[in-house]
């Protein structure tokens, strides 16, 4: 029972962290942009879905589609008109993204009311897996994150845009000299990343209590940053594996010490600190030792 519970929690949390973290890792890997507003975009998409599906009574699929596309486009615009101009200033990027995240946090209750917004499950019910009922939404989350990662891998390795993205990730200046439009590539990467955040917004709040509140982004962001760092910043494979590792640590703590469940965050952080002390670049990261601007 306990083992199954731990496995199940790991699976759920792991997939959600994976899908959020891979978007963040993509943007960091390509543009060296730590987009701290990433989970705020996810929250925005969740609020939009809630408003459209519950508030206006749209069919859920339509609401999800509109929210995902809308948030993705918003991410593109945010990059194009704001981030692109301050790309060179690391501190300014961090600051603008965190400020935008806080702005979204403040905007949500003004636009959608201060009560937590309910986000419906996309798939109801459960299927038995090894004699233990697993809600379908978990499997959907897992499927979609794996599917998205597969698509991303196809895009990166098989298409011309993907080659451009990888070139920019490797060396921005040289990629620019080879005739690649760096800011367009970064904009595309940002669009993909934000879309993944928006997809996560459709899937995650529904399983994490069934509603989204205005502080949802912060806790998620902290955990996702832990995941991304553990895996090595910018490494998609690393963040995927680290997502399950962090989820496992959290599940272990919250199952073994149910009364101190809130400590699971602290334990995940401790895991990150230990990891970074042993291996400063994370599991699959590189040190960028040669990158001396």
């Amino acid at each position, binding site marked *: 029972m306990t083992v199954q519970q731990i496995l199940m929690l790991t699976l759920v949390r792991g997939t959600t962290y994976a899908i959020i973290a891979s978007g963040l890792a993509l943007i*960091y890997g390509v543009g*060296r942009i*730590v987009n701290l507003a990433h989970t705020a975009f996810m929250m925005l998409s969740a609020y939009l879905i809630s408003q459209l599906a519950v508030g206006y009574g749209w069919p859920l699929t339509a609401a999800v589609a509109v929210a995902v596309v809308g948030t993705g486009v918003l991410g593109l615009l945010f990059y194009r008109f*704001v981030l692109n*101009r*301050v790309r060179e*200033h*690391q*501190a*300014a990027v*961090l*600051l*603008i993204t*965190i*400020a*935008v995240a*806080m*702005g979204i*946090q*403040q*905007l949500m209750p*003004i636009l959608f009311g201060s009560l937590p917004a309910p986000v419906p499950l996309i798939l109801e019910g459960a299927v038995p897996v090894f004699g233990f009922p697993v809600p379908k939404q978990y499997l959907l989350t897992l499927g979609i994150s794996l599917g998205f990662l597969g698509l991303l891998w196809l895009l990166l390795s098989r298409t011309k845009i993907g080659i451009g993205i990888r070139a920019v990730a490797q060396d921005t200046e040289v990629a620019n000299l080879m005739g690649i439009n760096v800011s367009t590539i970064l904009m595309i990467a940002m669009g993909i990343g934000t879309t993944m955040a928006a997809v996560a917004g459709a899937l995650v709040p529904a399983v994490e209590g069934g509603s989204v509140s205005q502080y949802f982004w*912060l806790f998620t962001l*902290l955990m996702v*940053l*832990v995941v*991304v*760092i553990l895996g090595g*910043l910018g490494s998609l494979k690393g963040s995927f594996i680290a997502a399950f590792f962090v989820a496992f640590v959290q599940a272990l703590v919250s199952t073994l010490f149910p009364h*101190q469940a*809130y*400590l699971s*965050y*602290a334990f995940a*952080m*401790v895991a*990150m*600190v230990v990891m*970074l*002390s042993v291996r*400063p*670049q*994370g599991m699959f*990261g590189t*040190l*960028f030792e040669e990158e*001396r601007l």
Partner: protein
Amino acid sequence: MLRLVSRALKSLRFGILPVPGRLLAVLFFIFLFLIPVITSSPYIMLLTTMAAIYTIFAVSWDVLSGYSGQVSFGHALFFAGGAYGSALMYMHFGLPPAATIPLGILIGTALGVVTCFPALRLRPPYLSLLTMAFPIILEQVVRALPARFAGGDYGIRELPPLAGSPVQSYYVCLVVMTVSVLIMWKLTDAGSKNIRTGLIFHAIREDEIAARATGINTIRYKILAFAISGIFASLAGTLFAHYRTLVSPAYFSSFTSFLCIIWVVFGGIVSIYGPVVGVYTLYVLLDFVRVTPAARYQTLILTIVVVVILLFMPEGIAVWIRDKIERECPRCKLSNVAWRKECRACGASLR
């Protein structure tokens, strides 16, 4: 004595009066000292005292993250560490503020130095995100410990106040702030002949490998940067705890750290006057918003201001203003008023 006075007059005549930025800074500090004379409204006193405390906090972040380049996202650790340190000293030993503040600083600094060790080997983005983790861990530890030991969720209340009256507290904080800012300014002054830390911090930020290659023990200086920053941030924390007469686990929140970063970058990173300007404009203006009907939109306004400022003056508002009113002589590197045609010292053309 006479020589000292004449030296002071000389530096006033040649070092301060001809440089509008420094003149403004001096006038600003004189104005700060005169505020209680102009008005004694409790709200203004509260606002300016808090601004003074936050200035120490923001400048200390700038020393660590701006000057030595160790961009910390968890500066609340030092701040709350100092606050909790002094509160615990009061709670368990009943010491007065005069004793708890130094002990709190000691505890906050020790906390910072111990936790900086895993951070020393890390590259910038990892370092920022690692430092963000520590206050969160500590916040949960404080919440998890039994209330009789560290106050638990509700924090520790009814600490002894800093001074008898609001005006006295204001002057205590203002004097401490002025002295701390001056010390940090001297410590990070790259042009100083006696103190090398400023130059070395710059070197570490610009190129750590090159700094190491020239024989600088970068690890030692990074620990020093953490310690200096920790001393002043926890000083701000202890003052804050005694001024508000309470500490709560919320002091550890990431929001505290982020606000501090926002003030500094808004004012101008890697400049001591930048954070001062940042706190005294952004914090004070937003606090004015808090008492108007637009209070709901406070964070939204903060966001818009930050984004707009960074888009149009990414170096920060203080640096932007400085560049408008001052010009550095290309030959002797002396600052001049922007509208002078030639350098006031060497006569080189400034056009």
